[in-house]
């Protein structure tokens, strides 16, 4: 049994028939072929699969595709606009906030959610906001600097 869903991903409308149990992350990766969103744990701890759903960070391994029916999704592929990197992407690059890159898309989108709520976070607030995203490579040191870089840049732009 398949059910129809309509999901807008990075501004593009997709209509597909899916199994009700299909996870949003598999919908994004395998049905739409957008492989920037990663699966690290499939039990909602690691945060590699974070996307924005109607502007808020969700772990897409814990959302069914059918729950995203009618929603606006932003994945890492949709963050840069007109070839211009988002300040968070820029920050991760400038500050060496990534090594293997696997956690990076989820980390960036979780940080995006934080900066929407709190445009001027302290280091402690950044660390707290990212506790649902594991990184095994960086020790988080440069991730904190990357988010701070983006926060400053976004404040200047605003």
């Amino acid at each position: 049994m398949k059910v129809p869903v309509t999901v807008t991903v990075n501004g593009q409308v997709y209509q597909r028939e899916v199994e009700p149990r299909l996870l949003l992350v598999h919908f994004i990766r395998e049905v739409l072929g957008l492989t920037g969103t990663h699966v690290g744990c499939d039990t909602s701890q690691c945060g590699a699969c974070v996307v924005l759903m109607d502007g808020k960070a969700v772990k897409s391994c814990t959302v069914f595709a059918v729950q995203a029916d009618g929603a606006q999704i932003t994945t890492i592929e949709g963050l840069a606009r007109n070839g211009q990197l988002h300040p968070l992407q820029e920050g991760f690059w400038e500050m060496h906030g990534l090594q293997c890159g696997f956690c990076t898309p989820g980390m960036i989108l979780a940080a995006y959610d934080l900066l929407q709520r709190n445009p001027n976070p302290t280091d402690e607030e950044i660390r707290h906001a990212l506790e649902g995203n594991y990184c095994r490579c960086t020790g988080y040191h440069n991730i904190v600097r990357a988010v701070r870089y983006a926060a400053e840049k976004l404040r200047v732009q605003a």
Partner: protein
Amino acid sequence: MATRYFGVAMKRREDPRFITGRGTYVDDLALPGLVYAAMVRSPHAHARIKAIHKEKALQHPGVIAVFTGKDMVDSGVKSLPCGWLLPGMKLPPHYPMAVDKVRHVGEIVAVVIAQDRYTAEDAAELVEVEYEPLPAVADGAKALQPGAPAVHDEAPDNVCFRWSIGDREKTDEAFRRAHRTVKVELVNQRLIPNAIEPRAAMAQYNPATDEYTLWVTSQNPHVHRLLLAAFVLGIPEHKLRVISPDVGGGFGSKIFVYPEETIVTWATKQVGRPVKWTARRRESFVSDAHGRDHITEAELAVDEKGKILGMRVKTIANLGAYLSTFAPAIPTYLYGTLLSGQYEIPTIYCEVTGVFTHTTPVDAYRGAGRPEATYVVERLMDVMARELGEDPAEFRRKNFIPPDKFPYQTPVALQYDSGNYEGALNKALEVIRYKELRQQQEELRKQGRYIGIGFSCYIEACGIAPSQVVGSLGAQAGLWESALVRVHPTGKVTVYTGSHTHGQGHETAFAQIVADELGIPIEDVEIIHGDTGSVPFGMGTYGSRSAPVGGSAIVLSLQKIKEKARKIAAHLLEAAEEDVVFEDGKFYVKGVPDRFKTFQEVALQAYLAHNYPPGLEPGLEASSFYDPKNFTFPFGTHIAVVDVDPETGKVKILRYVAVDDAGRIINPLIAEGQVHGGIAQGIGQALLEGAVYDENAQLLSASLLDYALPRADDLPSFEIDHTVTPCPHNPLGVKGIGETGTIAATAAVVNAVMDALTPFGIRHIDMPLTPEKIWRAIREARAA
């Protein structure tokens, strides 16, 4: 040569693809007709397989095939090999899927191939396996007790090997005449690597050409190809191409040849379709090779002046149920040989018993033997300093190998090439403001606050070499590295390196070396790795070998390129070869810099070969295989400052200072990032992580809910500094930096916590130092 890139903190060239979601990891790949594999795994730690019923699974819609271990063995598949052999060691077979018995939770008993991921998982539940459960043992010491259940018939006492290094009699004698001795019993707990990208493998067979392609999360694709082809599957080596694309972290766990890639490579031919498997995190927990798991008794002896006389170490190393690819090397040659640390120790004796248990195999995990050694040495140094009433920094300083004694021959085989241990210690003490900190500690204690300062003065041996030596120690491989440098007619350069990057930034750091040496813009350099179809046989990346061994191989090839280019340039300039200077990408006759040929002009002529030196072959490329003369020996001092809350037992890291010496640094941004990540894993072991098996050898900590990886809010920001003592024997003067943090941090943090707990008279608590353990220790100490 004008240095333009070497030493510059360039941001990484690989990052644009990762920050925009355009990386390519194995699970991102798809092929027409792709089908998926799901593994049926044993829920028992030890059981006889009485029967496996495939029927229900085969009837499930969408299922293509179900295979068992017997199917594989019947078709000629052999045991997974072990790549390091010790004298007298027991080597029981390790088939990709269990044939008669299962020996650890998570061992594969069958594979289901189905049209999609979900169907494969559904049908795996329908495979009925009849087990006869047998008694199991998880703990290394218990496995050695008489009557313990045997893991293999080949080793009824569960002993895989007994190994020793050093002089036993001389060491016993040193202890007999010692002024003071101390003894500690240490558990170096089992860790689970948890790279954030789960392991994955996808294989395709082309019956028309009889060729296989395997995409796999590997730190060393050529090693994968050799072992799979020649030892396990019987595929001619040139008919198997192994590609390891972007890999999401390894930390050792992606070195080894595992059952899963073996199964998909075999199964793709059986089903005539490409097959993919990607681990779920729970599978990672039970099937990725684990790390550490030592039980150790260690003793240190000193004379009246507090100078060390000798060290004695006895270790039980839990190897798990089977020997993983390099398992025997880790608790022996990468452990016992490091026990001299930074110190002048006249005599050392170490014996190690390698033990089979009903647990997931144990192998190299970041640091691999060296963190275990450093933990032993640095705990002993602290316990002895406290016993003598000496400052831990000064006790270490007094026993350092002085800078004028290099090269220094330790009593445990290694010859350290260089070092300035006091330099790193002094710098770390200065950064942390040690004297003030001790005063502050005193004052805070009066207020009932307990901060602690912990040291770790570590030595690392990395870039393990030379091949002849490792071969004599049991390695079944050479430990050199390859590099092919191909200059194209336009002067653009492609470098094929046998090293593999899974986060280390080779595409940037190696390109920095190439651009400097050839005097060309870094944009003109491309670094290719991870494909046996294009890269010369390479040994891959582990043991912090990429820069010292892989980087040096590139330098050798660049030298050959420059030599040949100089011949061509001399011809074009109508000058004698020895009069031609190469500088900033230009060849010119000595003293006449205005008349020159650019590197690009020379490259073009190498391919035109019109106006060309007689007898010289056209083309401009060179390959090299670099076999190092020795290990490299990074060292440093790390200091942790912690605050222990006596009411809750919670540890907060207030400061963490790392002063490392990895020789010349190619890219400080990347090098510091490596140190940060290493420290995080070391702190993880000290405070948070640990595999927990119950008495039936069930893994209780088999999810990220139950196994505590360090999170952003568990860690501080780090204060990083370095000293520079170049490696004297490789062309770049570099050492490894990838494991230093992990090697150093664990001991620094534990020593800091024990320092904080000194007023309670607490001498040692085994890791991880969870609030509960500390709280209990304080309560018991207060009651006593």
